[in-house]
């Protein structure tokens, strides 16, 4: 456990000192502030527009930060040979993988929290009070980001940063489309349905973590739904990190 925390702390330091992260975060904060002006263009629904765009903006920029930082996580270590120094020490491969995952996730969560604070201030400033429901959306988003970070860590054990980014973007799209795909497949017939089932259960169903529409309409998602999504997220992350460990062990360093 010690080694995991040591590697996580090191990875976190490296992540938050990357200047490109601050560039993306700056754009994100500008966007969240800009929702004030976009909200004013609506007809009396400015608060709803601010919430909608604000939460969507937080999501979009957190995905960009995640893909950008995580896609090169392990690849950079192998290319730059820093992994030689770490794995030559009494560190197990799984400690390295989990440490990298936790360090990256912590860094990304920090940026999400900064965006969230700015969002809450904007909503408060526009008379919307403290948007506590958005914190549920934030919680589920963190688990979705966790799945992404674990996938990026897995991909970066065997592919280049560009390929990792590409796979991540494709999975982002598929992950949010799985429920719709299954619905259409069920309507199309049993062959289509059974063809889609393996993908539906194997690939990450990211819509489970999307409660933004619910919270924007001042409704609370069900406790059972939220709990199931969190358990699903944890289980998926564990499986992906296990595969990342196997993949890294197979690498000829």
């Amino acid at each position, binding site marked *: 456990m*010690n*080694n995991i925390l*040591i*590697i996580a702390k*090191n990875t976190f*330091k*490296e992540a938050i*000192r*990357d200047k490109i992260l601050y560039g993306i975060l700056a754009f994100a904060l500008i966007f969240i502030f800009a929702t004030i002006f976009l909200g004013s263009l609506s007809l009396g629904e400015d608060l709803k527009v601010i919430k909608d765009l604000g939460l969507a903006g937080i999501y979009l920029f957190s995905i960009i930060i995640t893909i950008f930082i995580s896609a090169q996580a392990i690849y950079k270590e192998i290319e*730059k*040979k*820093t992994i*030689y*120094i*770490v*794995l*030559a*020490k*009494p*560190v*197990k491969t799984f400690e390295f993988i989990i440490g990298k995952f936790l360090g990256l996730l912590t860094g990304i969560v920090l940026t999400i929290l900064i965006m969230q604070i700015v969002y809450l201030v904007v909503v408060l400033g526009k008379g919307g009070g403290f948007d506590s429901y958005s914190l549920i959306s934030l919680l589920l988003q963190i688990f979705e980001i966790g799945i992404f970070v674990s996938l990026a860590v897995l991909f970066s054990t065997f592919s280049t940063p560009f390929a990792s980014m590409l796979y991540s973007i494709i999975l982002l799209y598929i992950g949010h489309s799985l429920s719709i795909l299954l619905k259409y497949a069920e309507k199309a017939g049993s062959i289509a349905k059974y063809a889609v089932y393996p993908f539906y259960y194997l690939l990450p169903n990211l819509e489970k973590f999307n409660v933004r529409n619910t919270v924007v309409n001042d409704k609370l998602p069900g406790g059972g739904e939220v709990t199931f999504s969190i358990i699903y997220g944890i289980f998926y992350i564990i499986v992906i990190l296990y595969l990342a460990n196997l993949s890294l062990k197979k690498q*000829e*360093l």
Partner: protein
Amino acid sequence: MINISKVTKKYGKTIIVDNLSLKINDGTVFGFLGPNGAGKTTTIKMLVGLNKPDTGEIKINKYVASSIQSKQTSGYMPEDPYFYDHLTGYEFLEFCLSLSSDYRSKPQVENSDSSRISSNGIITKMLETVGLSEAKNKMINTYSKGMKQRLGLAQAIIHKPKYIFLDEPLDGLDPIGRNDFKNILRGMKKQGSTIFLNSHILSDVEELCDEIGILNHGKLLYTGKVSEFCKRGELEKRFVELINNKQEGIAN
């Protein structure tokens, strides 16, 4: 003791290390020599547990090289080491020292006068030893090549390992740097460490090493005392003769 027993390693169909057997007694400074592509770096990576042999076995003091117990007593400096750009020299050594579980089990080590020193003291002392005190709070991405070599050595020996594996440690160093490194290695040897090093700078190997092994195309051509090997000439001259004779033999 370092015991390499009938080790073969292939990458794809290419044999990189071919049935290598070698025994190195504790307290020895062992120079592992060979032309480029001979298999030296591959061997050293197997010794520190980064890769596993396809056949054969490597043991460091009774433990398999890839085991945690073996890694606890080893220190490794890779060839042309790279580091984390956004850490300072001090932070990097702190990171490396923390990962040494042997150090963690006794967080304050004995100083030469039996007083105990903390991790901060250990890191500060090591930075002084390798000549990086003034750069300790600077980002590693501002370091020169020589400074990175010094940091590479520092992270390999900071936890006072019993077995030290160095891949081209003197590469890129100026004469003052090489002299400093050699003094550090002599100091480690006096403290009882076993040092296994790859180097192309044969004059330094001749000066530092007790024994050498010479590898070519993955095969061990010679192992033994430097003084024995150099009876009929300087190390570099004898090394070139040996490699050329073997290659002529193969060609014929």
